[in-house]
């Protein structure tokens, strides 16, 4: 399918513009429309796998106009966004019945999806900033959707830190423009290759890394995430943890570091440090939590650390003239973990939403014994927990295994040890979830608890199936070559990005 690339952005935008017009009267129509749009986007994302195209918006050749670039990395992220948004949207059909203003919720949801798609496809750095703002502002509003004390507090915190991050990014864009005279990523990377990294550009790079790390909630910058993600409604938590921090944070970071500025050893070690810090701190903080969703949120920090670690390791090896095959393996591990995490973390947040809706609480000490009451939620949650903890047949195991192998091949045994150690911590924290939420004695006041039916079940079950099947991505030959390897190649090619885009 060779649809024009702006369809990925304009389709959800138009639906979002139409939704408030439908209003209260045609609530069913609004829900159907929103679901159709997300499913269409998923299909389009599947159709775009393995393609590599450049689209010049408005027929203006770059650098005059803005171009959109679809390559392996973008296609991978588009796929993740498509999968998670479809499931979350389906889940919210029933879940959001407990809130008012559903049409506006759907509208903000679609705007967030449009923003993320725009970020992922953009080939122009200012354009990337604009779409980053769309996705961020929609997410600030969605975090505060409940309008209760905690939601508003979390939303304000998130908004302040997010705005500071955006300002950093904008200032960095201004610095890059001042130094290179262009805004197109391909031209910038060419100009930087010629001029070298002077102090202004170096500062811009530092600002970019700080800004995008804030968006990705890597550890020194993580303060907002454990508040914001649990406070949002469950489908939004799934979107935020599942794809938003990856599309706005990790993806943008990769694009800037690998394709625009080019990797260096120091930069690689910086990423590795950020990744390892996030892994360890996130895991330790998560184990101590008694709030179900807060535990999941801290676990997200830890898991995003794996992704950044893999990518940083790849950068270290690439810049240190190591073997490209090893670097590819490390990056493959990181990106595969990104995809895995998108699926199972969103599934975990959906199950937590299901539990919260039935029991009315997020406190794990008040739960217990829900295994018989909510069999579907329990089964899907177990699958996702096993996957995230790295129990062998599930996909989470394979991505961590790849990371370990890559670290060993490159000679960094201590990194491999850290990966295994954090993996054990993850196992402990999810055993805790299983033990206190689903097993044990039935908590007080939980006699009337019922399983949630309808769209919520469909969403959870389909994500669980996907979770089981994710391992195939690695072993079925056609899939890996078309989904994962082009994405890895975009990063290992590094600065050749500019020649690919400019032809």
């Amino acid at each position, binding site marked *: 399918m060779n649809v024009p690339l702006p369809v990925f952005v304009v389709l959800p935008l138009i639906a979002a513009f139409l939704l408030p017009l439908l209003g209260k009267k045609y609530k069913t129509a609004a829900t159907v429309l929103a679901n159709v749009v997300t499913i269409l986007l998923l299909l389009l994302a599947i159709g775009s796998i393995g393609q590599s195209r450049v689209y010049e918006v408005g027929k203006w050749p770059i650098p005059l106009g803005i171009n959109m670039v679809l390559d392996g990395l973008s296609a991978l992220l588009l796929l993740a966004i498509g999968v998670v948004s479809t499931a979350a949207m389906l889940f919210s059909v029933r879940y959001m019945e407990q809130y008012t203003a559903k049409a506006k919720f759907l509208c903000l949801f679609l705007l967030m999806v449009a923003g993320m798609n725009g970020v992922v496809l953009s080939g122009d750095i200012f354009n990337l900033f604009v779409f980053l703002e769309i996705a961020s502002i929609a997410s600030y509003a969605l975090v505060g959707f409940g309008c209760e004390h905690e939601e508003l507090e979390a939303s*304000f915190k998130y*908004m*302040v830190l997010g705005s500071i991050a955006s300002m950093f990014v904008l200032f960095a864009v201004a610095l890059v423009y001042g130094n290179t005279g262009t805004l197109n990523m391909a031209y910038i990377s060419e100009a930087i290759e010629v001029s070298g990294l002077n102090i202004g550009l170096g500062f811009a790079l530092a600002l970019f890394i700080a800004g995008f790390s804030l968006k990705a909630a890597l550890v020194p910058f993580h303060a907002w995430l*454990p508040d914001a993600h649990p406070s949002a409604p469950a489908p939004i938590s799934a979107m935020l943890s599942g794809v938003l921090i990856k599309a706005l944070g990790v993806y943008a970071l990769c694009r800037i570091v690998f394709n625009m500025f080019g990797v260096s050893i120091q930069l690689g070690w910086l990423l590795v440090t950020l990744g390892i810090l996030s892994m360890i701190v996130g895991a330790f903080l998560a184990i101590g939590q008694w709030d179900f969703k807060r535990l999941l949120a801290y676990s997200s920090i830890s898991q995003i650390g794996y992704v950044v670690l893999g990518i940083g390791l790849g950068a270290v090896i690439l810049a240190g003239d190591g073997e490209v095959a090893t670097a590819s393996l490390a990056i493959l591990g990181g990106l595969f973990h990104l995809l895995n995490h998108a699926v199972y973390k969103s599934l975990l947040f959906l199950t937590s939403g299901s539990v919260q809706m039935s029991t009315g609480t997020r406190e794990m000490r008040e739960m217990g014994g829900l295994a018989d009451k909510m069999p579907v939620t329990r089964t899907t949650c177990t699958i996702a927990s096993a996957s995230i903890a790295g129990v062998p047949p599930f996909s989470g195991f394979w991505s961590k295994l790849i990371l370990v192998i890559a670290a060993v091949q490159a000679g960094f045994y201590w990194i491999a040890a850290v990966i295994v150690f954090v993996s054990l911590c993850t196992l402990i924290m999810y055993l805790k979830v299983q033990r206190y939420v689903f097993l044990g004695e039935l908590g007080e006041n939980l006699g009337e608890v019922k399983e949630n039916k309808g769209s919520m079940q469909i969403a959870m079950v389909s994500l669980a199936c996907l979770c089981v099947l994710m391992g195939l991505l690695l072993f079925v030959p056609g899939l890996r070559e078309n989904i994962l390897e082009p994405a890895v190649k975009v990063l290992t090619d590094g600065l050749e990005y500019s020649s690919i885009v400019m032809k």
Partner: protein
Amino acid sequence: MLYALCFLLFMTGLYCAVVKKNMVKIVIGILVMEYAVNLFLIMLGYRTNGIAPIVGRSDLEAGEISELFISSTVDPLPQALVLTAIVISLGSLALMISICIRTYEKYGTFDITQIRRLKG
């Protein structure tokens, strides 16, 4: 030097946003940062004795744009970017103030050290 003054303004805003404990003050800090970035972008495009990037009838010579206009116009691209950035900042200001007002209604204060329900 003008650039450095701009940067000082940016850092004043950042200082305000990270240190103050009044919610409206934090918003004001972010606004100051936005002004600073906008000014910086426009300054990047300035030309000494430049003219605004708007073609008038006097700038046309037999249907073509005069050399004088081409060689003395300031950079139009940062202006386009700043126009976008201003509107974005207005939008986020509106949302931030809405959150502030709603929070004030719930907690009865703008003091973020007293708005502390989330822990951990």
